[in-house]
């Protein structure tokens, strides 16, 4: 589904990713762990097409298509979703209107009919229960006045509604209490299927107790320096990132 080959990227002329390789097959859940500054968020942002990030070398194929030449909205329509680390507040753009516009843009791209208002509301209600968000939130501006945890749950809610093929979670767990963490994990676990893949980017291992990955990769200095199964996350938690840096140095 996703093939990243020798990816070099950075921002404002500063190199951050230095030859990253990663392949994610349909149905797999991958976790990328790493210390601050290792390039985790850069990877998420490059994949989602955030402006200002520059790719200097390498390629990214999504279902065989060159992802890097698509604008952000087309990546989303192809089925890539980024749950953001810092979701922005957009007062004046109604949450529900926004989500419907997004949903219909994606459906149109897939050659599907737009959902009518009733079908859409049913879907929204069903998914909202999963993330335990109150319906009153939907009539506010996008993320307007949401707490940090509510913003993260809103990301997972949007993911659940838009049903992406590849969901990228950029430190969705940071700053969450244990209940919110469980809710986020449930949302992602509901998405899991043989057709859906997930890339979880995190600093800590605790989300991975609820959201068990098939593969764990350790990122350091812009490259994957170690890969393994879920037990690697536990090992990292015990030994700390210094252990990795000492080992690869």
């Amino acid at each position, binding site marked *: 589904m996703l093939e990243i080959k020798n990816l070099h990227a950075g921002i404002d002329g500063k190199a951050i990713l230095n030859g990253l390789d990663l392949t994610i097959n349909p149905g797999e859940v991958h976790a990328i762990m790493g210390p601050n500054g290792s390039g985790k968020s850069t990877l998420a942002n490059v994949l989602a097409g955030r402006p200002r990030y520059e790719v200097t070398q390498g390629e990214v194929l999504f279902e065989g298509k060159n992802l890097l030449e698509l*604008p952000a*909205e087309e990546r989303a329509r192809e089925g890539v979703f980024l749950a953001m680390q810092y979701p922005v507040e*957009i007062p004046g753009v109604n949450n529900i209107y926004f989500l419907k516009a997004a949903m219909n843009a994606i459906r149109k791209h897939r050659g599907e009919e737009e959902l009518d208002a009733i079908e859409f509301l049913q879907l929204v209600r069903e998914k909202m229960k999963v993330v335990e968000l109150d319906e009153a939130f939907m009539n506010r501006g996008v993320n307007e006045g949401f707490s940090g945890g509510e913003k993260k749950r809103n990301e997972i809610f949007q993911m659940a509604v838009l049903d992406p093929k590849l969901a990228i979670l950029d430190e969705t767990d940071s700053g969450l209490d244990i209940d919110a963490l469980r809710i986020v994990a449930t949302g992602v676990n509901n998405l899991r299927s043989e057709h859906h893949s997930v890339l979880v980017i995190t600093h800590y291992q605790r989300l991975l107790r609820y959201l068990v990955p098939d593969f764990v990769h350790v990122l350091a200095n812009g490259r994957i320096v170690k890969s393994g199964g879920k037990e690697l996350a536990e090992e990292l938690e015990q030994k700390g990132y210094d252990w990795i840096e000492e080992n690869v140095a």
Partner: protein
Amino acid sequence: MSAVTTLREEAAERFATLGWPTPRIEEWRYTNLAPVQKVAWRVDEAPAAADSPASLVEKGATEYVFVNGRGLKPAAPLETTIADWERNAMVALNTANMQDGARIEIPAGQIVDGFIHLLFIGKGDGIWSHPRNVIAVGANAQVAIVETYVGSGSYFTNAVTEISAGEGAVVDHYRIECESLEAFHVGNVFIRQERGANVTSRSIAIGGAIVRNETHVALAGEGASVTLDGLYTGTGTQHLDNRTVIDHIKPHCESLERYKGVLDQNARGVFDGKVIVRPDAQKTLSRQENRNLLLSETAIVDSKPTLEIHNDDVKCNHGSTIGQIEQEPLFYLRSRGIGEDEARNLLVYAFAAEVVDRMKIEPVREQIRRALFQAIPQRLPERRGEAR
């Protein structure tokens, strides 16, 4: 000779003395009426009846329609005038040539249900009109009045509205300028408030080639409060000039002013807002803000909020901002699959909608939302990709 005839003649003389405003005058430094001045305007003596999609009669309005300055019934003679025709040339021009317009008198204590809609339709090239609205709201009375200006062709509307709000009166006033893009529009609103009167006046400027809207508020009784809300959205080569003067004459009055501008392509917007606090106006509260969104490299806005304070027992603040569409919200919307053009339009609309959302009359909100959706321009193809 009747009083009105005398007034017209005096005003005509006054206009002859003052002449057309030019950018040499401080209050007109951003706006040049030369393109208006050079036309040999004429009055439409017998306007044909006209329909307009802007009619709100089916939405519960009590509606009066004026075509090229003429109403269905001739207006009653003008009784009083608080409009300053002696110093303001365009008001003098209106007074000398004034036509029909609303004469509304709400008796003391009366609460008017629903809202009154004054619909002004301009039609045809080379026609000017000088509507004059006189609204007197009695003590403790309450009313909502909406003025809408629409039309087709290259005409010129020079309108004056006078609102006097008696003690404790509550007035919700709307002025919606959706003139033809070839038309010229000068509007003057004069508001005088007695003790405890509460007036909200909202000015929306969407249409017109050259537009100048002035709102003058006199807080003439203790404890009066006024809210001025404004929104101007320009594209092409539109020129939209807003001038407001809030005069705190008596103590314990409050004024709140919030104007927003959205300028695209080669449009130019002006906000020139002045708050005067007189020596007797202790305990004045005043807040004034002007926020602008520029959508192109060539759009211009001049923002000039001014405070003139003559006593030291006041709380006043003012500010203005001029910015562009922010990249973070734009990326957020795009990252969910919404195309760049639509995402931009959503953000522009969101910026403008704040003013609309505060309006109390639902059919008016609906109408302005529709007008905004049409006015918020489609992005130029060559500008696509700049955010990538």
